[in-house]
């Protein structure tokens, strides 16, 4: 068991850790917007670390190039999807946790 195997093990364990953190946040947070915050961490760090560990395991080959393509695609699209979900929730007045207020952009420009 050389240094590369240990690095792969640490990376994939970190990926599972971030997936578990995202799932815990999805269960414990009080409203839609904070749940979207937790789920974005889950997408970016969890899937990124697991696929990075697989890239390190496979070395330089066609499969690792394809894995890097999947990482880049997921990093772009999941941020976009979370932004669209948050916009849909904000525009349709989804309930927020008590104590939050919506900023009124029309009154700001004096």
């Amino acid at each position, binding site marked *: 068991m050389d240094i590369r195997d240990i690095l*792969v093990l640490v990376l994939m364990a970190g990926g599972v850790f971030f997936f578990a953190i995202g799932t815990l946040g999805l269960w414990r947070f009080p409203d839609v917007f904070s749940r979207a915050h937790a789920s974005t961490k889950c*997408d970016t760090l969890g899937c990124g670390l697991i696929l990075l560990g697989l890239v390190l395991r496979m070395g330089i080959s066609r499969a690792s190039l394809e*894995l890097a393509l*999947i990482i880049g695609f997921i990093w772009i699209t*999941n941020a976009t999807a979370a932004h*669209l979900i948050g916009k849909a*929730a904000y525009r*349709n007045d*989804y309930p927020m946790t008590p104590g939050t207020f919506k900023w009124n952009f029309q009154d700001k420009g004096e």
Partner: protein
Amino acid sequence: MTEFMLLVTIALVVLVFICLGRAVIGPTAVDRLLAINIIGTKTVAIITIISYVFGEQFFLDVALVYALISFLMTVTVAKYLDTGKLS
């Protein structure tokens, strides 16, 4: 190393079922959409790990197409929840 990767796969499947609980009980539609989005990402990770364990090269193409379809589903449902129509 193969046993560790199978252990990671089992942990991810357990987390998928926990997310499915949020998708079932979620109070609003956006909660369900978030849960299904996370399930799609976890499925991509599971497919790539299975591709390494079994040594099958073409599962990576399956994972890429799955990520594409998951993104398309999320964008479509978010647009429907936002504006109320799809065109």
